[in-house]
Structure formats: structure tokens, C-alpha cells
């Protein structure tokens, strides 16, 4: 008498997730906007014939076509006469790179610390908790600003500083998520079955904290992008002439009261990108852990 009628939930967790995802408006909005930005970033050279670095001091600060500008430059030109659309399109690359790489760095640090603390507990946990406290107690924005101010803000410096700055949330969340997973009996079962530590971490812990990881990753990615803009605002973001959106905002800020489109265009682009990433993060959380929201 083999029990064959094994299921009353006929779909796999992955299928159920996809179904929920397709019904989630925020997630779809976020993903679509992200996809558009990524496509723009990849195909920037095809989308504009202008070189984002090519200046022309004779055609400075031409407003966008909508505000009665030159039809050759539909989004206008910046203070050095560079095509604004070309800078915006190429700038998507920079902003995405900053977001992704900084988040990868901080995820690596934060996850390692968080998972180790959550898994081992005890002394390891005490050390990691201490580190997290140090990190939180340190006004790292200031320290980072100091470092960038003194070392000069190259793309690499900015990304590494942001990466070193944003790991705390990964550590905090993954620590508690790991603790929770760690207390489940399948971890004990795996141990009893002789699984090695790395194997347990990779096969049993990581997949089960993955959704937290992804959600925080998106949040921190958005955070990194917006922080870079803030650094740029204080004059310490990536270096010109690199077309980052944060830098464009910071350059456009000069003329805020007179040519407000200069700051509005990259500002809106940045706003939507960050909005989209956040909505994606929220969506992923809703979809992977539906109990989290309702």
C-alpha cells in the first residue's frame, strides 16, 4: 500500500512564487523600470550619437526641447555643452555600477559576519555584535567623507567606501535569520548526517536566508546610489567628467534657482531608479515570504 496521492498542494514553491510575482504590481513596476535602466545602460551608445564627454563651450546650458531648446539636444546640454541625454544614458552605467558593486562588497562582508555569528553564536556572536555596534556607533558617513576628501573621490574609492559602510544591515538581518534557521531541526539533522560545516552553510543556511539577502541587497543598492548622490552634493562623489547621475545633480545644483531642469532631469531619473529598486525589494520580500506583509 504505497501512498501515492502525496500532494494536496500541487505546485512547487518556485511556481507558487512566480504566480505571486506576476500578480504583484509593485514588483512588476520596479522590475520594468530597472530593466529599462539596465537596457539604457547597456545600449547607451546606440541610443545617442553624442559622446557624453565631448564638450562644446559654444552650446552651453541649452534647455531641453520641451522648454524650447535646440532639437539637436532633446534633453538639452550641460554647463560644458555636453549632450544631457548622452550623459544621462551613460550615467546609468555609472550609477548602476556604484549600486551593484557597493552592495556586493557590503553583502560579502555583512553576510559572512552575520551568518557566522548566527550559526556559531557564543563568542563569535559576541565579537560580531561588537563589530556591528562599532559600525553603528561610528558616524561612518563622516569618517568616509574624511577619507574621500583626503584620498580624492575616484570611482573606486567611492565604491569601496560605500561598500565598507553599508554592511551593517546585512549583518544584523542575516544574523537573526541564520539564528532562526539554525534552530530548525533540519540543520540538526544535517549535522547528525555528518554534513561538514561549509556544506551546511551553503546548502542549508544560505538558501533559506537568501530571500532576506536579496531584499537587503536591493535596499542597500538603492541606498548606495542615493548616498553617492549625497556625497556628490557635498562635492565628494565620483570625479568628473564621469557622467554619474549624482554628479549631474551636484553640477546642476549650481543653477537650481535659474535652470532647474539641470537638476530635475537627473534628479527624477535617480528618484525613479531608487524607487524601482526599492519596490523590487519590497516585491521580492512579499513574494518570497508572503507572511511578511499580510
Amino acid at each position, binding site marked *: 500500500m504505497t501512498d501515492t496521492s502525496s*500532494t*494536496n*498542494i500541487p505546485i*512547487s514553491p518556485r511556481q507558487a512564487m512566480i504566480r505571486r510575482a506576476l500578480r504583484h504590481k509593485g514588483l512588476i513596476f520596479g522590475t520594468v523600470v530597472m530593466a529599462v535602466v539596465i537596457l539604457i545602460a547597456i545600449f547607451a551608445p546606440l541610443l545617442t550619437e553624442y559622446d557624453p564627454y565631448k564638450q562644446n563651450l559654444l552650446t552651453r546650458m541649452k534647455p531641453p526641447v520641451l522648454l524650447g531648446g535646440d532639437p539637436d539636444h532633446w534633453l538639452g546640454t550641460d554647463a560644458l555643452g555636453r549632450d544631457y541625454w548622452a550623459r544621462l544614458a551613460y550615467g546609468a552605467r555609472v550609477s548602476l555600477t556604484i549600486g551593484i558593486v557597493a552592495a556586493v562588497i557590503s553583502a560579502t562582508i555583512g553576510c559572512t559576519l552575520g551568518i557566522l555569528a548566527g550559526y556559531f553564536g557564543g563568542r563569535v556572536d559576541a565579537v560580531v555584535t561588537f563589530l556591528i555596534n562599532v559600525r553603528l556607533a561610528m558616524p561612518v558617513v563622516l569618517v568616509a567623507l574624511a577619507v574621500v576628501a583626503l584620498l580624492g573621490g575616484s570611482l573606486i574609492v567611492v565604491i569601496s567606501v560605500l561598500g565598507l559602510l553599508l554592511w551593517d544591515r546585512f549583518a544584523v538581518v542575516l544574523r537573526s535569520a541564520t539564528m532562526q534557521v539554525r534552530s530548525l*531541526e533540519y540543520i540538526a*539533522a544535517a549535522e547528525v*548526517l*555528518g554534513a561538514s560545516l561549509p556544506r551546511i552553510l551553503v546548502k*542549508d543556511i544560505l538558501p533559506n536566508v537568501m530571500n532576506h539577502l536579496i531584499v537587503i541587497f536591493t535596499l542597500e543598492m538603492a541606498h548606495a546610489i542615493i548616498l553617492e548622490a549625497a556625497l556628490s552634493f557635498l562635492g565628494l562623489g565620483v570625479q568628473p567628467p564621469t557622467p554619474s547621475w549624482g554628479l549631474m545633480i551636484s553640477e546642476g545644483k549650481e543653477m537650481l534657482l535659474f535652470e532647474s531642469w539641470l537638476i530635475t532631469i537627473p534628479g527624477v531619473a535617480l528618484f525613479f531608479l531608487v524607487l524601482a529598486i526599492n519596490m523590487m525589494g519590497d516585491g521580492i520580500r512579499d513574494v518570497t515570504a508572503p507572511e511578511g506583509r499580510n
Partner: protein
Amino acid sequence: MSDPILSIRNLTVDLPKGGDRQYAVEQLSLEVAPREIVCIVGESGSGKSITSFATMGLLPKVLTPSTGEIRFGGQDLLALPASEHAKLRGSQMAMVFQEPMSALNPCYTVGTQIEEMFETHTELAKSERKARVMKLLEEVHLPDPARVYASYPHQLSGGQRQRIVIAMALALDPKLLIADEPTTALDLSTQAQILHLFKELREHHDAGIMFVTHDFDVVAEIADRVIVMQHGRIVEEGSAEEVLNRPKHPYTRLLIDAVPRRSRDARGAPAEDVLLSVNALNKIYHIPGNMFKQARDVHACKDINFSVRKGETLGIVGESGSGKSTLVKCLIRLEDPNSGEVLINGTDLASCSRKELHPYRKMIQIVFQDPYGSLNPRRTIGDQLIEGPVNFGADRAKSMERAKELMRIVRLDPDALNRYPNQFSGGQRQRICIARALMVEPKVLIADEAVSALDVSVQKEVLKLLNEIRDTLGLTVLFITHDLRVAAQVCDNLIVMQKGEIVERGNVEQVFGAPSSDYTKMLLDAQPGKDWDVPDISTLPPVAV
């Protein structure tokens, strides 16, 4: 009999789309009279709780009663506006829930929480309210009412909390008291006291009591009338005596048949050679304090000594927190014991380093209690089954063959190997866990409350399977349980633990027939439904369905 307080007619509650079935309860009719305990029994998901929630007006928003009426005190509750219904709650009808641990707000003293009843529903002055609360606390036999009054829930034990909830329910002398599995989460001894309290209530108050449970022993202990539910429908109804001893409906018969007997299944005696022995094992947990609490030590296992022979089934019984799980965790080295030895085939596992331990891991395997937490939801069944052999160096393809074979042994479809755990029911998961443990061909199998979370009928199946496997594979089994009946049924020898110590040991007949420790006597005494001899269903006359 007087007029019913509550009468439910043709109640149907719809389930949201995509649920297990269309209705949570369907065409349900029942009555509760004053001074009467009506037990509703049925397996998990049969709609017992939904019925009580519908009566209290506490249904979750997604569930809506579609037809029928619930008449209470001359009015139809379903037609009543929510605010009117709220006024009845507490004053006219009250409810006691299953989980005493979480049923009280951790932020307020229990006194305040009981007083709230008077505050909301009466005009009593503060001092009078307090006096009434004190009286209630006495009525539910709480020691030192003044202290309890000022205590926070977490300072009380589960049984005490359940009494608080009952006191709260009785505060305004309601006409109807609904108890939804009020003893399921409690220890045997506490359960006995709470059941006793209910019986007392029936004597001293006029209230009609609707008592939801899934345990026939409890039914036998207190019920006047019994209603049996299955899949949202009432399948049988009658006086307790009738239903318990002469069940008519096949489903009722199935359930009653699954109730474990107090006698041991006949089987051959185990061999003589000792396979596993534990000497002077100690485990102390250090609980670190925080800013507001002292650190303290919990001596979870004290000088544990016992040995198990090859092929023997040793039962370890004891109430919650007595150290059973800690003991087995030390055996399999999920915890490191503070002192003592665990000898298996002459090797001391307790003193092995992690590395040395590895080859011995496969000797002892374990099946845990929680069927939902013991399988990794993100890995396929097959992947988890071959985990063990692969870790011990076996070939993946060969292990997969073995996994298929074991799936057949635990009576599951081998094709299910590439599915995920969430596609299986609790009973099926426990079988998978058993299969997983058996993959590495252990000598000793530990079952830590392996069947406690399952419905009786499923429990019976899994127990049967375990017994079969033990016999065919010649396994030695350590069977941990708090259910004396189950222990009696499957074990050869028993160990009784209390507060980390072994207080009694011997074979089943000795322990049950002539217990030596007071603790064991008390446990035996506390079992509900002692007066009920489970009828032998096969001897009952067949009934047409």
C-alpha cells in the same frame, strides 16, 4: 433538559478560493444546554475552531458564514452588528484558547487583564473590581492570589496561565463558555487539574460549555455529549457513553481504534548484548543574564546512567522540560555533555573530537518532533535523503537507488524524490524523516517525540511503520515521548525523567503496574479517561454508512 443556550442551525462557512476545500464547516447544527459539557472532536482541520470562532464573532476576515444561524439568548448572532456582538463577548459568552503561553498580553499584569473585563462590561468601582478578581483567582485554585494578581504572564507557568484565562472567562458568569483545546499544550498533571476545574465549573455555574478537543481520553474524562466532526461536517452525535463505547460512524470508529492502548504490542525479547550505554552524563546550560536578569545555570541532565541492548526499544518519558531532548542531543553530540560517557560498541562518543566523531555519526540517527521544521524547504526530498550517504563518501547514483528503496519501505512514491517538502503532509514528512535517518544504516534510531505532532490516525500509521522497520532491520530504538500510552504500546523498557534526573526505570509492566517513585504514580494518576476502556472496534456490529 432545559432550553439550549446556544443553538446553531445549518451553519456554513466558506473558505477562500484555493483552500483545501470549499467550506470550512458545512450545514452544521448543534445545541448546547446549560450545565452541560459538549465535546467537539475531530482531527486537525475538521472545522472545530471555525465553529467556535463563528459563535464568538472572531472569524478571520477571509472567512464568512454564508448560510445558517447561530441563536444565542434569543437573537441570531450572525445578524447582529459587530459592536453588539462585542458587547456579548466577555459578558455573556467567553472563550478559553489552546495556547496559554501566548494568550495573555505580556505587557500587563494578569490582575489588570482580568480587571479589564469588569472595566469594560460593568460600572464597578476600582476596589470592588480588585476584590472580584481576587475571588476569581481563588475560585480557579491559584495559590497566593495577591502575588498572582501582580504577576506578569511570563512569571506564571502554563497551567497557571490557563487558569487565569479561565478566570477571565468566568469573570462575568457567562452563559456560554467555549474552550478550544484548552489542555492540549499542557503537561499531563496540569491537564488533569484543568479538566478537574472544568468539571467543577459545571457544578457551580449555570454555563453551558462547548469543549473542543481532538483527544478521546479527554472526551471520556469530561464530556456529557459528543459531536464528531470530519471535513467540516458533523458525522456523529450522541451521549458520551454511546459515542465512546458504541461508535456508529466509520470515521468515529477509525479514530477510536487509533487511540493507543495501555498494553504493549506483543513481540520477541531483545538480544542480551548491550549496544549503547550512558554513564554519569551531565549537561548544564548556562543562561546568560541581561541588564535586568541574573544569569543562571540549568542542570538539564543530572548523572544519567542507562544502557540499551541490541534490538531493544527504550522509552524515555517525562513532562516538558524534564531533559529528554537534552539527553538525546548529548547522545548524538548536537550538544557537548559537560561530563560522562556515551559508549557505543566500546567507543566513547562523548569524548571524541568533532573529527573523530564523523565516522560514528552514522551509528545513531534521529527523527525529530516537528514535521515542518525538520526538512529543508529549499531542497528536494531526494537531495536531502542522499545527504547522509554522500557525506560518508557514497556514490550519488547508488544513494539515489537506496533512497528509492527506502521511500518504498516508508510507503511513499519513489517518484516523489524530486519534489519539495511543502508538497507533503505532516505524516508523510515524518516518514521521509525516518527514511532519511535510515539512509546511513544506523544501529540506533532515536525518535524524539516523533509522533506527538500528528493526528491520532496518522500517529497510529507512523508508529506501526516504526515498529515494522525496527523489527525488519533489527534496529535499536530510543523512543522519547510524554504520552504514557504511546510509550506503553511500543517500548520494552522505560525510563522516567524528572528535572533532569531518572526517577524510575524498568520494563513497561513494572513501571505501569507497580511504579516505585511518587512522580511516576502521579503521572499515571493524571492520565485522563482512565475509566474508559477503549472498545475493540472489530467486535462492534457493522453499521451501514
